[in-house]
């Protein structure tokens, strides 16, 4: 029987639902933060949820055939199909409900996709899904690489990072010269029908992601959440420090945490000033071991500019009628 869904704000860690809907027995790395995103979104959404997941770590590592860690129904979808999977599932449910073929009730449709699958390949499908009036949530879990194929750079990889496509070499010290896309901001700016957009880090501030998922699911239309997930394998740090790195990403301001709820934008976490230098976050990751002081300074300066020059720090790169871009 259908259980009623009440999306109450979770106040404090003691109030976090105890039940797991993504359970033990998945082949993710020790300390994997993307696994934490799975755990948290499903806790927030509860049993009346259908999850769709694109190819990537959260497919290949999570499910090994004949076994599954999922408690809620889950289905694989293709790498670029996060948006379409959400759309098709939600449309299918709505059609069946409208025609009386299945009972009318709220079923959460949540599609998750990686940064390569979602922010690069599948951006068009996500954009399309966010233009509709279907009830769906897309979660971009961003571990800053094509992790499942053994860590290649994507459009979301931090500038300067070593990946297997952007090694450091004798002639080229830095191969990752793209600057991370501001996907959530981009989607918010261009999709007037989207009801809720947010960025989040599963471990920091605690419970933030859960409540953002709940807000997204009660927003009454398409919603999108971008999470930054420290990845012990690809970022090269000891798995026990995933929480710490998440916290440093927020405190240094390199990953601004915000939400845009029915058009109203607000920072949900304002890193106390002085912000933690980004170097403190970067130097704890082996993928940045080759960076020099000038590189750290370059990143710092761009992060500072985001906080100081943007109309709404971290979200809209506009000031006095100009779009901020790197000189």
């Amino acid at each position, binding site marked *: 029987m259908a259980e009623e869904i009440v999306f109450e704000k979770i106040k404090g860690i003691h109030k976090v639902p105890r039940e797991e809907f993504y359970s033990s027995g998945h082949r993710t790395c020790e300390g994997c933060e993307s696994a934490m995103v799975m755990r948290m979104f499903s806790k927030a959404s509860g049993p*009346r949820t259908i999850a769709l997941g694109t190819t990537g770590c959260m497919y290949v590592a999570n499910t090994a055939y004949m*076994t599954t860690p999922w408690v809620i129904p889950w289905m694989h979808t293709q790498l670029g199909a996060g948006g379409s999977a959400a759309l098709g599932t939600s449309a*299918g449910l709505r059609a069946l409900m409208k025609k009386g073929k299945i009972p009318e009730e709220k079923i959460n449709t949540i599609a998750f996709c990686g940064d390569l699958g979602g922010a690069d390949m599948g951006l068009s499908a996500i954009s399309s899904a966010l233009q509709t009036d279907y009830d769906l949530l897309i979660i971009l879990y961003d571990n800053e690489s094509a992790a499942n194929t053994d860590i290649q750079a994507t459009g979301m990889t931090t500038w300067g990072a070593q990946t297997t496509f952007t090694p450091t070499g004798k002639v080229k010290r830095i191969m990752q010269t793209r600057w991370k896309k501001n996907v959530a901001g981009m989607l918010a700016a261009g999709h007037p029908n989207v009801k809720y957009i947010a960025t989040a880090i599963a471990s920091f501030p605690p419970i933030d992601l859960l409540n953002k998922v709940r807000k997204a699911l009660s927003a009454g239309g398409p919603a999108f959440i971008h999470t930054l997930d420290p990845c012990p394998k690809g970022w090269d740090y000891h798995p026990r420090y995933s929480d710490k790195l998440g916290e440093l990403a927020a405190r240094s301001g390199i990953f601004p945490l915000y939400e845009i709820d029915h058009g109203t934008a607000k920072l949900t976490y304002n890193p106390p000033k002085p912000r933690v230098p980004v170097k403190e976050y970067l130097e704890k990751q082996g993928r940045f071991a080759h960076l020099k002081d000038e590189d750290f300074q370059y990143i710092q300066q761009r992060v500072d500019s985001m906080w100081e020059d943007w109309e709404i720090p971290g979200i809209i790169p506009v000031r006095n009628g100009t779009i901020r871009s790197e000189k």
Partner: protein
Amino acid sequence: MTVVEGKLVESQKEELLTGCEAVAHAVMLADVDVISAYPIRPYTEVMDAVSKLIADGKFFAEYIIADGEHSQFEIVKHASAVGARVFVGSSGTGWMYAMEAIAVTASDRLPVVALVGNRALDDPGAFGVEHNDALTVRDLGWLLVWASTAQESLDTTLIAYRVAEDPKVMFPTALAMDGGFLTHSQHMVRIPSQSLVRKFLPAYNLGDRRLHPDNPISIAPQVNEDWVMEIRMQNAEATKRVPAVIDKAYREFEDVFGRELGNPWLEEYMMEDAELAIVGMGTLAMPAKAAVKRLRSRGTKVGLVRPKWFRPFPTELMQKVLSRVSAIGVVDRDFSYGSPYYGGVLFNEIRSTLYSSKNHPTIANFIAGLGGREISIADMIKMIQLTYEAEEEGKDGQVKWMGVRE
């Protein structure tokens, strides 16, 4: 009410419809739940027609304009997984753009029904018919059927849902239609009533494979080498169950709608006592029939075999029908560069089918009508003549491109 062969049948109204419109009517009658559209000639007309039927309140479906064919096919795949009956389609390069989703739909055993308005593949861009687009799915687990008239398009669409969704089958099904010639020309089509369709086509039921919180399952977990052979084997064995389901669907169609459809697998035209058979799919059957008829009137014992279902391939039936003749001309509206004999796809399938036949007919191949070029009655007569010559000269396996400026 009219009486057909002693049975009461509700009147079926007649309308002048293009092949695409005929399919759109079938989609309406099948009470499809989710449709995903993206424009590309020539199949687009079906989506134009469907959207108008929805706009006019003739039926209700979630109609989603996708951002590309990949999404289009992913959308219906997922809608199908939650238990919705779906419709989708594409043509030429659009079909190729969707290929990843197309392949995975078959592996997921989801009974999506798609229309392929056959179109030449880019480059160069061309609108005309070629069968290569649809043929790309021949190895993937899609059921593949060619229609050659508007009426057949409507009928086969209903049959496609019935077959695809049969619990013994559960494979996606593509209905192929020659772009331009069939998709866009209007013919009189009998449209069955909703109540009869309901009688013929049971509700779509995925059973315990339906993705829903009441039936928590995981679909398509990652596998290692311990599983792939067995999973492929399941699919391979399942395809063997399809022919009986198709046979039954055609018989019941005839029962319910009171119309003869003939052999589901292939149309034999003037094949009794034929010594030469011309073989070809889709609308090229039209000039072929005319050619056969004219030659017959002069005493030439020639006939036409028009395969309808290409997947599953009717191996034994094809052997039986074609072993009776001593020469066969296979007309391919496709190419298969570098293939055995540098021939077409249908040609090589038929050659392989006849390998074990005792009388080893001479088989000639004609690549014709690519990119929408017309195949005339004269072309057909020429091909029949060339097939006779090949037999006389003992030249088996000749491939000739027809109608190329030389």
